[in-house]
């Protein structure tokens, strides 16, 4: 079974990488882009009986830094 974890910066936390990507997109001539925020996608292959609670614990204990990041769990 596969679970996808999306780790994103919390609202209000400045994202220098997103800003640089935004500038690069503008440099390539793409207009109409308001903002870019960069995050991270982590794919976890696991046994079907791994609980949602365990997946959430994986996120809060290691995959995301809860001081600056949020996570979202997506199961196929």
């Amino acid at each position, binding site marked *: 079974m596969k679970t996808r974890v999306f780790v994103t910066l919390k609202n209000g*936390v*400045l994202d*220098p*990488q997103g800003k*640089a990507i935004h500038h690069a997109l503008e440099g390539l001539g793409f207009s109409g882009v308001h903002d870019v925020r960069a995050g991270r996608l982590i794919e976890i292959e696991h046994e079907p009986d791994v609980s949602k609670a365990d997946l959430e614990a994986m996120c809060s*204990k*290691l*995959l995301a*830094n809860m*001081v*600056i990041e949020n996570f979202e769990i997506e199961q196929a």
Partner: protein
Amino acid sequence: MRAAVIQFPGSNCDRDMAVAIRDVMGADTSLVWHRASELPQGLDLIAIPGGFSYGDYLRSGAMAARSPVMQAVVEAAGRGVPVLGVCNGFQILTEAGLLPGALMRNAGIRFVCRKVTLKVENNQSIFTGGYDSGEEISIPVAHHDGNYFADDATLNQLEGEGRVAFRYAEPVNGSSRNIAGIINDAGNVLGMMPHPERMIEAVHGGSDGRRLFEGLIREIA
């Protein structure tokens, strides 16, 4: 006096740190590998050195903070053993929950490697007793993720309790309120991005870092 410097795969300031502690403090200093589950007995100081532990995978310091030796470091810090984290060591201490906040990518995206001017905000800690309060000192930085972030409540608390040890005299990396180094609430853990161990003798271009270690001797001897 006994000290330990923790080594992770990818640490690269471990030897400089050990030499600084040994030479300036005269401490019996051992290097401890990250797989160790126990620290040497009777430590007076634990140092977490700079570098790129685990290749900065996931986040700077994230993997190192979960390695076996860090459980022993957290336990020792809880008993009041002084812990000094420099650069990657600061990142590891925040990831391990020993210090509040997080170190994010530099605001300018670029790696910053140069001498910077620091203001000593508080000389009442065991780590800063070798300096005058408000004094400006020169110490090099070398980091990509030194942009200190914490929410306003945490920043106000740090400032209100005198736990900002060092501040950049001018913006270096986008750090909240120009914070370069902070101390935990018990006063025995310091994390700082600049490298005092790289300013120990004249041949380094200055010796302002030496006084941090000299101050520590007086406090913990």
